[in-house]
């Protein structure tokens, strides 16, 4: 009974898969925040290196992964694919459950898959410092690790609620030589504006993004890096799904259901885009692709599909995506990495077109699922990842009812070793089941301030 399905180091993908090549029509272009006209490469060059701008817009089906990047990926890739025998047995499901374990990276999550190439291209472009934001700290620590490898300085604006909640993430960033600042901070105009309005704000990813973008735009030697949402980030994450497809082929299998948790959408994109490509090109028309999001910040299930800013201050280009409004500050729940008002434009488009679908869960039910997973498979997952675990368990239980022996694949995106306060809150019954009052908002939609 094989449990781990492993690839050889040489089987690390040599090319990323770009789903833009297989979309039936091009993505709606990002718009300039001031002119509302489509943006060009020059508009982005103040904060991104040209190669990443090229990757953002290319419609080539494959993009080469530089050998120097593959060399670093060897530290943890190819990551193992597990067959969850013990979970299946516990659930008494006829379904087969597989999970891709991305927690084996040095920073403990999938985020290093993109932090390495992003730091690499910035180094190549002669950039000396990178600014970024981080929610739960997964992305911040991943970028701190990557910038250290390429001798770049790194400034990280960390959402305040997570900064106090997860001090050890901050410590990791320090170990790898990065500077970590709680956001909103007094270092930027955007941060000061928020603090002035609301000194007690728990912060939000959207606010931290404004700060990091402003930092990059106002310093010539500094570029900005984003850990999710953007097309090139999703592109870099496709190594996850590409490896999965190979690994499943080794055991002569192919998924009926593919699942990932969704905040900005990159880990979900990473595991699902290669399979969504198979669906779009007609190779596997019936595959069910599910994004699991928090009920407190349910952009895919309850948001509007429209143009909106990527940040609170309105500094980023307007992107066509599912959004709850860029001024929405999600409640301070534990899956800090999923506290984002919008979603990846590609994921949004695929959900809008019905290629993928989304489900939303409350906090306590995902922690219950995470507990089941820890007590069967052993891994204590991050609160973000627990949303994917919950969706996988739900699908497996549905199979139990119908008797179907579906193959379920989910992305186990990161470990929860720094999230023990969240687990403690679960056990002491202190978890609050936040949700988004969408009915009231829908009834009054015309009266809510326009998004763009």
């Amino acid at each position: 009974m094989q449990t781990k399905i492993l690839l050889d180091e040489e089987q690390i993908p040599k090319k990323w898969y770009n789903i833009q090549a297989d979309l039936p029509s091009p993505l709606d272009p990002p718009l300039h925040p001031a002119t509302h006209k489509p943006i060009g490469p020059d508009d982005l060059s103040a904060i991104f290196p040209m190669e990443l701008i090229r990757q953002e817009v290319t419609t080539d089906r494959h993009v080469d992964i530089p050998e120097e990047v593959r060399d670093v990926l060897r530290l943890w890739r190819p990551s193992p694919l597990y067959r969850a025998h013990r979970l299946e047995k516990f659930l008494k499901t006829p379904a087969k459950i597989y999970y891709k374990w991305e927690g084996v990276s040095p920073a403990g999550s999938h985020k290093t898959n993109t932090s390495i190439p992003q730091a690499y291209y910035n180094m190549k472009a002669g950039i000396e410092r990178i600014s970024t934001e981080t929610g739960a700290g997964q992305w911040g620590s991943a970028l701190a690790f990557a910038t250290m490898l390429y001798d770049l300085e790194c400034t990280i604006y960390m959402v305040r609620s997570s900064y106090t909640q997860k001090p050890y993430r901050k410590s990791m960033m320090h170990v790898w030589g990065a500077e970590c600042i709680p956001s909103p901070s007094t270092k930027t105009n955007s941060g000061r504006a928020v603090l002035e309005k609301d000194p007690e704000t728990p912060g939000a990813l959207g606010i931290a993004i404004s700060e990091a973008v402003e930092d990059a735009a106002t310093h010539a030697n500094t570029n900005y890096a984003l850990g999710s949402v953007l097309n090139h980030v999703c592109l870099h994450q496709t190594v996850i799904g590409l490896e999965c497809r190979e690994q499943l082929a080794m055991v002569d299998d192919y998924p009926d259901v593919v699942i990932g948790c969704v905040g900005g959408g990159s880990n979900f994109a990473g595991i699902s885009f290669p399979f969504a490509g198979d669906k779009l090109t007609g190779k596997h028309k019936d595959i069910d692709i599910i994004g699991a999001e928090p009920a407190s910040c349910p952009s895919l299930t309850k948001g509007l599909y429209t143009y909106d800013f990527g940040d609170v201050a309105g500094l980023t280009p307007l992107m066509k995506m599912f959004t709850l409004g860029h001024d929405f500050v999600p409640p301070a729940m534990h899956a800090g990495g999923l506290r984002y008002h919008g979603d990846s434009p590609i994921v949004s488009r695929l959900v809008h077109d019905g290629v993928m679908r989304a489900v939303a869960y409350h906090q306590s039910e995902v922690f219950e699922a995470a507990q089941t997973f820890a007590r069967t498979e052993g891994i204590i997952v991050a609160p973000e990842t627990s949303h994917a675990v919950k969706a996988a368990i739900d699908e497996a239980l549905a199979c139990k009812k119908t008797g179907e022996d579906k193959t379920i694949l989910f992305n186990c995106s990161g470990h929860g070793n720094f999230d023990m306060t969240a687990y403690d809150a679960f056990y002491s019954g202190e978890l609050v089941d936040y949700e988004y009052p969408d009915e009231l908002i829908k009834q009054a939609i015309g009266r809510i301030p326009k998004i763009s």
Partner: protein
Amino acid sequence: MRRIGFLVNPVAGMGGSVGLKGTDGNVDEARRRGALPRAQDRAAIAIRRLTAVPDLFFVTCSGEMGGSVLRACGETRYWVAYQYPGTSTAEDTKKAVSAFLQEGVDLILFCGGDGTARDVFEAAQQTVPILGIPAGVKMYSAVFALDPAAAAVLISEPYGLQDAEVMDVDEEEYRHGVLNTHLFGIARIPARAHMTQVAKQVFEEADENRAKEEIARFLNEVMLPGVLYIIGAGTTTEAISRQLGIKKTLLGVDAVRDGCLVASDTDEKTLLDLVSRYPETKIIISPIGAQGFILGRGNQQISASVVRNVGLHNLIVAATPHKLRETPFLYVDSGEPALDHEFGESIQVISGYRIAQRKKISRSL
């Protein structure tokens, strides 16, 4: 030195053990049925813990109404500001509280039940915070600590202040099986510092007010033109009206439409009449009382028939995160079990700007 006004209602709770559902005007009957005073024992649990707290000084009443409890606990830091005549009535409680206020107390700690709370509040209003050591038969008011020991812990540590509903229960009707409560007033009580789950933040009064403002900002944003809104009692709903620029009755149920007050301090009949006249109506209420009742306590004008006519889907419940933390379950007691049942297992409660919580509903206390 903090000055604590301390009083005990010596007969509080006596009716309970002998099936009298309240002791108001019934002390002799309770005694005849063999009831023993228990308020002094309850108070003593709290006082024994407070004797170890420095910087306290008690201002109290003589004998069973306070002094003898302090003395029995070995507490010597007190002085008597009110002479207990030997038979305690509501008037004694009110007179004692007035005497405490003249002595400049910082807080009034009382031991009793809902009736005592009502009398203490009537005399003190919001001039000083009050806190109840629970010893009564009924405990619908939110001014009581969880138990006597908790009362001591609360005032021995630094505290903020929060609103707490004082409920008035008609004892005569209650004895006949009819629970008729209304909101008597909003007192200020010490607020327990909470370690929130997000960070080691301590609950402060500012947070509570900020949350009310956020709820009000959101509800004002989603209130629709042409719709009649029936707005329940309490400080959360008052904040909503304030944002609309409407002066609402704090303790009553009002109706507004298009930013204008349509009816103030309404009764059930007026509400039913309004609902029949306005095709589109919604209800905005906040849970009331110690247990967090959505319907059935303090908002009883919003009866089962009113809710039925408006439609359950048009009921909007709002409460601050602090209030929701204090009440793990919410309760519904509309007087019509079938309607209570329709609420289901849980309900959405608006708790911030575009933020809600899903709360479990329980039907029995």
